[in-house]
């Protein structure tokens, strides 16, 4: 299989405060630079990371971000996973809609972050919290 995703490197960051969000963002930025993402692609994935890491802290009650350097069919990319053990998102469909918010924000975080990356996956349950995975592939 040439389209299997291989993980070359992984690093995890705790997400409990706004300073943790900053550290997580820097981690993604540094790796994006290391693999030579364009400035624009790097800016996009770092911005998406900032939105999702903040969600983990603010709505998920804290959690973890794991950053992976991945490869598929010889192409490099950054995969970032956000996990929390919060109450979950009861209506994911609505949460993915622009302008929908329950947290007093502007409601652009999730749908906005999805537009900034190539792959976006979200699962959420009341028992297991929320898990969001994004990938930005190198062009």
């Amino acid at each position, binding site marked *: 299989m040439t389209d299997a995703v291989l993980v070359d490197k992984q690093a995890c960051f705790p997400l409990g405060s*706004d*300073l943790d*969000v*900053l550290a997580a*963002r*820097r981690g993604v*930025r540094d790796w994006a630079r290391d693999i030579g993402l364009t*400035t*624009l692609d*790097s*800016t*996009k994935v*770092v*911005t998406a990371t*900032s*939105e999702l890491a*903040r969600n983990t802290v603010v709505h998920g009650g804290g959690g973890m971000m794991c950053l992976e350097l991945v490869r598929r069919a010889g192409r490099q990319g950054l995969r970032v996973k956000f996990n929390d053990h919060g109450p979950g998102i009861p209506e994911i469909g609505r949460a993915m809609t*622009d302008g929908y918010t329950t947290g007093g*924000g*502007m409601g*652009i*975080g999730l*749908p*906005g*972050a999805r*537009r*900034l990356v190539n792959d976006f996956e979200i699962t959420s349950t009341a028992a297991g919290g929320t898990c969001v995975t994004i990938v930005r592939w190198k062009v």
Partner: protein
Amino acid sequence: MGTCLLVTIQVDMYDQLAITLQNDLARAIAAQDTNCVLLDISALEIVDSFIGRMMANTAAIGRILGAETVVVGMQPAVAITLVELGLSLRGIHTALDVERGMALVERAAAARG
């Protein structure tokens, strides 16, 4: 014409810092007879929804206190990313650099008479 506050952000912003900056600016505008704020974000690598909201709030608070805010120096990649994120920064004046930002403020002041 009163004074212009030039605020250059040279550190990575995190949420509490953004809130602190917004509050400090409001106090500074009121204390120093300021009628314009130039917020230089040329060193910012990203602007996310929280920082964007901070800038919009600062502009709104400043307007109530009699100062116009101009955000200057946004990196092109940051601008593209902001639009894709869905943040339009309506109500915020922007300029490419500090010089153009000053010109914008002066024109606005002249128009007001």
